[in-house]
């Protein structure tokens, strides 16, 4: 075997090993490090905490996965969650009805999803701009409607959401599972899912094949809106109040989780299986760092560093694999 071929097989093997086990390895290392630094890390109640603390992130990541597969990027979820939380609190304060409050919150989440979707797909404005604008205006509205105060919600529903049934399961955990099951179903079994891949693969071709791409793009953002609405309900009930400054940067965590999990930002492939691992990675990172009692500044610094490292790892190993693959297909005719 000559040097180049040897080099190629090496790169393929390394790339494949990293691609398959890299993330699992990083998660394992993180668990070991955090367990060594904090004796309470490896306990059942901490794992319940991890799920509950990151429930909103995990659920929003389902919608973000859809968006990224279709090559759109959604920067709005964090701000929209804050705004929807504020709406829920305000409606509850004025009507005393938690059901009405939740329904109107959900309706606003869907409405914003539809608004963004129409601007992106029917009007044709760049998704980064549309969702960036929503990132700003939704947060601004949330702050303006509350005058920057948080609004307490007193309702039996809040107690219900924070209860652990059988000392084990709380409603946010159930919602996570339901969101992923629903996401799996939508992505793999319905037209919306199939066309999401088509949009990411080659939108023009999909359009020529007769797919009503505009409609499905809006559908995509509506789906994302459902997830954002759920995320807002969980966020509000965990804090027992609507805070206009809540979940700042959630969208970045969600995007990072989706990419670290192994979905390509250029779309067309990937799925929720990858997202689950990415989300677990980020959830453990969030929890581990916050239980270390770091100050805000070092928390963000370490978090940013670990995320960048994980992204670097993911992207390079994927490229190693792809390069090796393309060069071997190119080399084959010559070998014959």
């Amino acid at each position: 075997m000559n040097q180049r071929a040897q080099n190629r097989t090496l790169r393929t093997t390394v790339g494949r090993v990293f691609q398959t086990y890299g993330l699992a390895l990083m998660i394992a290392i993180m668990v070991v490090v955090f367990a060594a630094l904090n004796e309470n890390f490896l306990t059942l109640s901490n794992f319940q905490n991890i799920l509950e603390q990151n429930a909103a992130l995990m659920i929003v990541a389902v919608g973000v996965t859809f968006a990224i597969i279709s090559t759109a990027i959604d920067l709005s979820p964090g701000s929209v969650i804050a705004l929807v939380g504020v709406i829920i609190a305000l409606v509850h304060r004025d009507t005393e009805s938690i059901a009405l409050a939740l329904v109107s919150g959900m309706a606003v989440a869907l409405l914003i999803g539809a608004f963004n979707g129409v601007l992106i797909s029917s009007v044709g404005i760049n998704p980064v701009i549309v969702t960036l604008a929503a990132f700003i205006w939704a947060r601004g509205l949330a702050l303006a409607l509350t005058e920057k105060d948080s609004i307490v919600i007193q309702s039996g529903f809040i107690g219900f959401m924070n209860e652990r049934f059988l000392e084990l399961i709380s409603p946010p955990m159930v919602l996570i599972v339901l969101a992923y099951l629903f996401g799996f179903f939508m992505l793999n079994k319905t037209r919306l899912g199939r066309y999401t891949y088509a949009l990411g693969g080659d939108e023009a071709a999909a359009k020529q094949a007769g797919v009503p791409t505009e409609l499905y793009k809006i559908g995509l953002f509506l789906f994302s809106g459902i997830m954002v609405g759920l995320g807002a309900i969980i966020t509000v009930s965990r804090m027992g109040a609507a805070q206009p400054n809540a979940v700042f940067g959630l969208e970045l965590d969600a995007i990072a989780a989706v990419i670290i999990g192994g979905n390509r930002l250029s779309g067309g492939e990937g799925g929720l299986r990858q997202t689950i691992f990415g989300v677990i990675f980020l959830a453990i990172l969030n929890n581990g760092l916050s239980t270390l009692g770091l100050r805000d500044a070092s928390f963000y610094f370490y978090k940013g560093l670990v995320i960048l490292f994980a992204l670097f790892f993911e992207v390079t190993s994927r490229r190693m694999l792809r390069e090796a693959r393309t060069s071997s297909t190119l080399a084959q005719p010559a070998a014959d």
Partner: protein
Amino acid sequence: MAVTQETQVLRARPTEQVADWFNRFGTVLVMVLFVIVFGLTTEYFLTVQNFQNILRQVSITSVLAIGMTMVILIGGIDLSVGSVVLFSAAAMNGLIFNEVLPTGLAIAAGVGAAVLIGLVNGVLIEQVKISPVIVTLGTMVAVRGLGQMILWINNSWLWVTEPIFNYIKTKSWLFVPVPAVIMFFLYVIAAIVMKQSMLGRHIYAIGGNERAAKLCGIPVIRTKILVYMISGLCAGIAGILMSARLSAISPGVGQGLEFEAITAVILGGTSLSGGVGRVEKTILGAIIVGLVLNYMTIKGISAHYQRAVTGFIILAAAFLDHLSRRNAT
């Protein structure tokens, strides 16, 4: 017959003419319109002092928007600049406050650190090939943490003590506040660079068609990394202006500036898909945002509603840009 047909082809349709005209002068038109309307509906708006205020307010965003225009022209985006402003301001004031370096060197070090972050962004984006949105989101978080660490070492706040910052803050040259003088000066340089230099031509070539640019022998990767470094440089200079505006550097400094800069660039008519746009029009975009925010402040509208309105201004700008571009082609 043939001749008339030809002239008809040559003469653009009226809607195209309007669109073309709007493309060229729309930004100026909107600005003049705002000044007239705002001037008629408030008393305080049309005063020299208020215009000085507006210029002071927009100077930081406008300087950031120079780098942002170039980054967007090559088809990228830089979301880290707001954090870099905090970082460079914290670095230079930390060095001055603790008397590590003399003032001039400390400021140079702060700006240099900002350029270095631009280099890191550029290398990660162009050489490691991670998408610019992801990379600069990552550095946005990490660099803010880094800046806050500097503040934390100095007990969470850094007082701005240096007299040169006070000079920039208070003095005006011929009615123009010093930050605005710096801003105009940088825009003149940027406009000359974009029009006359090799770098400017390369930037437009890469934004227009990267593959073609590469095949023509343009050093694509090197140019793009350089552009991210220029964006860092602008953020570093904005850090100087920020130090001159505030009496103390606090952890939240610079938050959201990146979005204001992007708004200015889009309002200035630069296409987000790259290759089309002018740096000198970006300043008009920044001033338009400044006019609107200033007007709302005079009218007593709360800062939070102002923020919401900023979001909708971006949408309106993108929408108008989209319309004029669609009609023009």
